[in-house]
């Protein structure tokens, strides 16, 4: 009896889940370094990523966006935290879950949304779509759709940076499912051998489509994967924006000053299915709720900022309203834009056979 009662009490105490605290020491240190204004901008960016994608999800349901559409919701701290540690000279190579990376890099939300809508005003004029966003001017060298393939491209970009002795690094995003592809290991070996300024972020959201990491990785501590190549590997709390920022900042320094690559296993979580058509039956509701309730990267950062007096709750609400409006405006912009003219079909490629019937 007594035992049961104690349990009941415990249960009632646990009713409201407590959002986990950030690494406070690190948070204070980054605050000191960047100043409050930058932190507010980072929180705003995370909110933008989330609202933008919520609207993108709705547009997909209304069939305004087609093809595959992989939402980044839940992983915002990785995109925003890492971009905050880079300079304009650095380059980014990403995969198909890249809307968040593109926005965090400062790409125009209108151009990104218009691309998802397949419009001429999109960031690749409608040719790339959700999986293939590009903005060369912003150093955003693509979303790529073949799992793992992009790491070699990033290695090559890093090669070019070293070749020209630039004060810059190349950041590559990868999923946990991509880690086992041979190309990843071939690239890591060359990056180490040739001292390339390559920073690889494994966004370890624990699932590749429907397959959990335990079911495909002989070694699940992915940080260890860099050991055989003599590359520094670290595990990072990907739901703590400051932990991500700090890890990338140190990696960038290592890349630029020592010419050494870095490999980061960034622990994060995707709230939605793999793509818009995946109901994600392979994980439990409890698991998803626990991630959302306890470790949501936006809640963790804003809670801390409010408790530190950097922001009020109201101000957070204002930021949210602002980015919601930006997302809505992007939708309207995309909707009102024109589809690409058929004449662009044969632009940007050498065409050997200009006709389709003969």
């Amino acid at each position: 009896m007594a035992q049961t009662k104690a349990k009941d009490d415990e249960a009632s105490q646990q009713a409201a889940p407590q959002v986990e605290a950030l690494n406070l020491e690190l948070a204070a240190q980054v605050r000191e370094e960047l100043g409050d204004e930058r932190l507010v901008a980072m929180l705003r960016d995370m909110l933008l990523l989330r609202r933008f994608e919520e609207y993108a999800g709705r547009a997909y349901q209304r069939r305004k966006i087609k093809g595959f559409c992989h939402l980044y919701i839940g992983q915002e701290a990785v995109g925003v935290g890492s971009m905050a540690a880079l300079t304009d000279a650095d380059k980014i190579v990403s995969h198909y879950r890249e809307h968040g990376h593109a926005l965090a890099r400062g790409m125009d939300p209108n151009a990104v949304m218009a691309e998802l809508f397949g419009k001429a005003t999109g960031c690749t004029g409608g040719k790339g779509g959700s999986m293939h966003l590009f903005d060369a001017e912003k150093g955003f060298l693509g979303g790529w759709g073949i799992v793992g393939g992009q790491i070699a491209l990033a290695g090559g970009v890093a090669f070019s940076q070293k070749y020209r002795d630039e004060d810059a690094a190349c950041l590559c995003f990868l999923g946990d499912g991509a880690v086992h592809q041979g190309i990843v290991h071939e690239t890591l070996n060359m990056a180490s051998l040739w001292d390339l300024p390559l920073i690889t972020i494994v966004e370890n959201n624990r699932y590749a489509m429907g397959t959990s990491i335990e079911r495909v990785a002989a070694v699940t501590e992915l940080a260890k994967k860099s050991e055989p190549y003599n590359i520094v590997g670290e595990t990072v709390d990907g739901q703590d924006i400051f932990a991500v920022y700090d890890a990338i900042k140190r990696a960038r320094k290592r890349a630029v000053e020592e010419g050494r690559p870095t490999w980061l296993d960034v622990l994060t979580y995707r709230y939605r299915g793999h793509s818009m058509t995946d109901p994600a039956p392979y994980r439990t509701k409890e698991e998803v709720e626990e991630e959302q309730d306890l470790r949501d990267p936006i809640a963790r950062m804003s809670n801390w900022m409010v408790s530190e007096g950097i922001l009020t709750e109201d101000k957070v609400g204002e930021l949210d309203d602002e980015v919601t409006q930006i997302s809505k405006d992007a939708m309207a912009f995309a909707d009102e834009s024109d589809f690409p003219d058929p004449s662009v079909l044969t632009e940007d490629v050498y065409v050997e056979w200009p006709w389709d019937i003969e």
Partner: protein
Amino acid sequence: MREIAFRDALNEALAEEMERDESVFLMGEEVANYNGAYKVSKGLLDKFGPRRVVDTPIVELGFAGIGVGAAMGGLKPVIEMMTFNFAILALDQIVNHAAKLRYMSNGQLSCPLVMRGAAGAGGSLASQHSQSLEQQYAHIPGLKVMMPATPYDAKGMLKTAIRDPDPVIFIESEVMYGMNGEVPEEEYLIEMGKGDIKREGADCTIVTWSRAVHWSLQAAEIAAEQGIDVEVIDLRTVRPFDKEIIAESVKKTNRVIVVEEAWPMASVGASVAEWIGRELFDWLDAPVGRVHQRDIPMPYAYNLEPLSLPSAEKIAEAVKKACYR
């Protein structure tokens, strides 16, 4: 007769062959727990267990090679490639190893492996996910390439592929998985290398395969309205392709169009057209016509995608041209 979906016909073929032959197993990304990205393997894990329905990491080159080795070890692997766009990563194991095994071992070993999965364009998946790459395999001595166009064909052909002693590349059009068609309950096989007349006609022959069969059948309807009677031949197997069925038809119609979803340069259609032009020259009243995808990577924009692909209208136009109308 009962009607079932293309994906279910494939599923039945797999289940029946796994039941029949203990050495047949299925391997690939998401084939087991997830029931397959396109649900072709639905229920097979429950039926046959994890020894015979094997989820892999995302390592196409690796598991294709494991498949080749398993075949050397006496098994009959069916390797699912989620899509043939990703099978490009496995090409080395298929082209350099699987295709050569019987020949280089002077017949001591064979490689009864099937590599199957989705291909083609549709639904705005953009450049890296919208490719028809049958030519890559059809080019290689040692490989056979099958591409069904109906649920009936899919089932009978996959069973044949699994029983074949050589590596068979079995390509399924991604947009066809949901298509329904008649499939008998009784067991049947469709012979390797045998084409099928999908529509009889007297004025012009269309030679095609896979999804393009359906565009061609629609084109035949359009042509019929204009008084042109079109015969549609579905090659079903593109290597080896059925020369007899083409010859017989062209001798009757004296005009021919080769229709493919793939790009035109160095394609299967190019080889078929070349063969017709050479072997059936005396029977032709017009140059061999062709309809194919535009010679460009596939754009995402959903107004552009259809412009890049063959269509019933384009095929009907080619038919008219061949008939000098």
